[in-house]
C-alpha cells in the first residue's frame, strides 16, 4: 500500500518535470534561437522614402531537385523587406519570374525560427494576396521603381540566375538610377545584369550572399547554382561572415547602388540601407 503511493508520487513528479521541460523548451526556444543569430532584432537606423516604389522579386520554383522536398522563397526574405519598405512609407509590389503564386520554403514559418515580420504576414491578407498573385516580371516596367530587392531561398537557385529577362530588366532599372540588391540566393538574380557600360553588374563589385560553406553545412548541394561560387566566377569581390554554422551569420555589403546581405538574417538591414542609398531620410 505504502509502496504503491510512493510509485504514484514518483510518476507524478516525473510527469511534472517532463511538462516543465517541454514548457521551458517551447517558451525559451524562440528567444534562444534569436540570440544565437537567427533573425536578430534590427535596431539600426531606419529610413524613410515616402512616395518611393519598391519591387520585391522572388522565385516560382517549389521543389528541391527531384528529391520531392518542397522549397521556395524563405519567408522572412520576402516579409522583412516588405514591412521595412512599408515602414519607410514606400509603395511595395511583389513579383516573380513567371508571376502567380510564390511558394514558401516549408521551414519559413516554423514556430522556433519565424520572425516578427513572418507573424505579421500570417495575419496580413493584403500581403498574402500579393504573394498569391505576384506580378510576372515581364509585365512590369522596372524603371518605375527606386528599389529592386531580390529575395532568396533555395528555390531562387533554380530561376533567378537563369532569367535573361530579369537580368535585362535589372540592367534597365540600374541605368535609371534604382538601388538593386537582395539577400541569400537573391543576388543570383544580378548575374545576368549589366551596368551602363555593358559590363556585368557584379564584376569588380563588393557583394555577399549565401556561402558555399552554408550550402555544405545544410547539405543542399543539388541546386543548380551556389551564390558564392557563381558570384566569384562572375568577377565579384565576394565577402562574408562565418559562424559555427553560417546559417547563424549576418553580413551586409554596400557598393554604390548595390546592397546585398548574406542570408535570411539580413533582410531588414539590407532594406533600410537600400532606402538610404536611394536618398531616404532618417526615421
Amino acid at each position, binding site marked *: 500500500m505504502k509502496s504503491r503511493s510512493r510509485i504514484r508520487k514518483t510518476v507524478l513528479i516525473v510527469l511534472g518535470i517532463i511538462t516543465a521541460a517541454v514548457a521551458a523548451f517551447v517558451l525559451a526556444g524562440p528567444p534562444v534561437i534569436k540570440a544565437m543569430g537567427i533573425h536578430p532584432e534590427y535596431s539600426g537606423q*531606419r529610413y*524613410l522614402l*515616402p*512616395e518611393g516604389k519598391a519591387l520585391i522579386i522572388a522565385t516560382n520554383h517549389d521543389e528541391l531537385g527531384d528529391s520531392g522536398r518542397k522549397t521556395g522563397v524563405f519567408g522572412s526574405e520576402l516579409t522583412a523587406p516588405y514591412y521595412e519598405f512599408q515602414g519607410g*512609407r514606400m509603395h511595395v509590389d511583389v513579383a516573380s519570374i513567371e508571376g502567380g503564386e510564390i511558394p514558401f520554403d516549408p521551414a519559413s514559418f516554423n514556430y522556433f525560427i519565424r520572425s516578427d515580420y513572418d507573424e505579421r504576414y500570417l495575419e*496580413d*491578407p493584403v500581403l498574402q494576396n500579393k504573394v498569391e498573385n505576384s506580378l510576372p516580371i515581364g509585365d512590369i516596367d522596372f524603371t518605375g521603381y527606386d528599389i529592386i530587392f531580390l529575395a532568396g531561398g533555395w528555390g531562387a537557385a533554380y530561376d533567378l540566375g537563369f532569367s535573361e529577362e530579369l537580368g535585362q530588366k535589372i540592367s534597365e532599372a540600374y541605368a535609371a538610377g534604382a538601388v538593386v540588391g537582395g539577400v541569400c540566393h537573391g543576388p543570383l538574380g544580378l548575374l545576368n545584369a549589366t551596368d551602363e557600360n555593358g559590363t556585368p553588374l557584379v564584376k569588380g563589385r563588393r557583394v555577399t550572399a549565401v556561402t558555399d560553406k552554408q550550402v555544405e553545412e545544410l547539405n543542399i548541394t543539388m541546386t543548380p547554382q551556389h551564390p558564392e561560387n557563381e558570384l566569384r566566377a562572375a568577377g565579384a569581390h565576394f565577402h562574408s561572415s562565418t559562424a559555427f554554422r553560417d546559417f547563424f551569420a549576418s553580413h551586409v555589403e554596400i557598393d554604390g547602388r548595390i546592397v546585398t546581405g548574406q542570408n535570411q538574417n539580413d533582410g531588414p538591414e539590407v532594406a533600410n540601407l537600400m532606402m538610404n542609398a536611394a536618398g531616404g*531620410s*532618417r*526615421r
Partner: protein
Amino acid sequence: MKTIPGHNTVNMITRILSAIVGGVLLLLGIAVFIMPEVISTTFLSLSTGGAGINSLRADIGALFLGMGAFALFGSLTRYRWVLLIPAVFLCLVVAGRVISMVLDPFPTNTIGALVMEIVFIMVLSLAIISHAFSGKEQTQPETVRAFASYRFLIVAGAVIVLIAGTFVFRPQISARVWSGGIVGRMSRSTIEDLPDGLHVGLAGTGAPMPDSQRVGISTFVIAGEHKFIVDCGPGSTLNLELMQFPLEETTAVLLTHFHSDHIGDLDELMLKIWTYGARTEPTLVMGPVGVDTVVDGYNKAFSLDAKYRYAHHGDAVAPSSGAGGRAEIIDGFGPDESVVIFDRDGVKVTAFLVSHKPVDPALGFRFDYGGRSVVVSGDTLPDETLMAQSRGVDILVHDAMNPDMLNVMTRASEATSKAVAGTVATDIQTYHAFVEETARIARDADVKHLVLNQILPPIPASILHSAFLGDSRRIFDGPITLSYDGMLFCMPADSNSINSQWLLQ
C-alpha cells in the same frame, strides 16, 4: 456562550470579506506590475519616463502585492492577526490621502478611492475582532498583545484623532494654512499664476477620427508676456476657455497647415479673442502660403455674425474694427528650411518646414524663452529639419500614430465593408510619424520630455496606452506623455524643471 462578533457565521463572513479585500489588493499589485502605464493614468498621475515606470512598478506594485498577500494569508489561515499588516498600511494610505486633500486644490477625484480604502480597513478590523471574540485562540500571539498595549493604543488613538480632526476641520485648516490664499486661487486661473517662463498647454490632442476624450488639435504656448495658439481644431476654443487661457491676451494664432482638424475652430477662436478683450485690431493669424485664403474665407463667412455682435453689444464688447482675423504669410525660409517669425521681449518663435505631403508647405514651430524651449511638430513624417530644430529642447510635442493598431482597424473596416474608413486608416500612415519614430527622434535630438498628441487611432481606454507606445520606452528613456486635453507643462525661466498639471479633469 459566544458573543455576537465571535459567532461562527460572523467570523466566516468577515473572513471571506477580508479574503476578497486581499484578492482585490493582490490584483491591483499584479496590474501595477504588468501595466504600470495604465495604473499611472487611472491613478490620475501623469505618465512618466522609464525611471518613473520603474519606481511605480517597484514601489506601488510591492505595496499592493504585499498588502494583498498578507490579507489573503490572514484570512485563509488561522493567523488572523496578520490582517493587521494590510490594515496598518491602509491606514497610512488613508492618512496620505487626507493630507493631500487638505493641501491639494483638486481633491474630489480621489474620494472614491478613499471610501474604498476605509471600507477595506473596516472589513479587516472586523475580521480580526471577530476572530478574537470567537475564542478559537486561547493565547493571543505577542504581536496582538503588543498592539493591545496601552502605550500603543494611546499613540494610535492620538494619530487617529489627529487625522480625523484634520479631516473634519480641513476647510478651517486649509484656510489658515493658505491664509485665504485658496480662495484667491480658485477665482484666479492657474495660468495667471504661472511663474515667468515658457509654458505649454494642450487644448486639443485628438485627430479627425472621433475620440470622446480628445477634441481637435490645439496647443498654446505662453512665453513670458506673449501668448500664442498653435492650430485650432474643432472644439478647441471651448477647452481654451475651460483651461482659463486668457484669450484676450493672445499675441498671434499660428497655423501649421490647413487641414480641417487644425483650423476648424478658427471662427470661434477669433470671435472669442475679439470679444473677451473688446479688441479693436483683428486677430493676427500667421501660417504658410494660403493663410490669407483661409482667413479671408472665415472673415467673410462670419461677417454677418460680427455685425450682430456689434449691434447687440456695441464697442464695450465688440468694436467693429476688431472682428475677424488679419492673415500674415510665413515665408522666406533660409537654407536650413527655417525662418524666425517673432523676436521680441526675449521671445523667439521659429517656423520651419516639415513633411506632410501632399500638404505643402506644412510647418512646425519652435519657441525659445528664458533658456527654455519647446517644439510643436504640426503634422509630419519623421523630418530631418524638425530633428535639427528639436536638438536639446525641453519639450517636443509630436504627432503620433500606431500603424499596427490602424492596420487592425483597416481589417475590421474591410470585414464590415466600411471600405472608406479602411482606406483612410491605410492612407494616413504615409504622412504621420509612427510612435516609435517619435521616440527615436526624441532620443537622437536629445529631447528632455516627449509629448505625443494627435493620437491615432483614438485610444478608447487607458488600458491600451502600453500597446500604443509599443517599443517607444525602450528607445527613448526620457519621459513620454501620451497627451490628454487639458494638460499643462510649466517651465520656469532659467531652471531645469518641467512641472505638469491637468486643468481639465
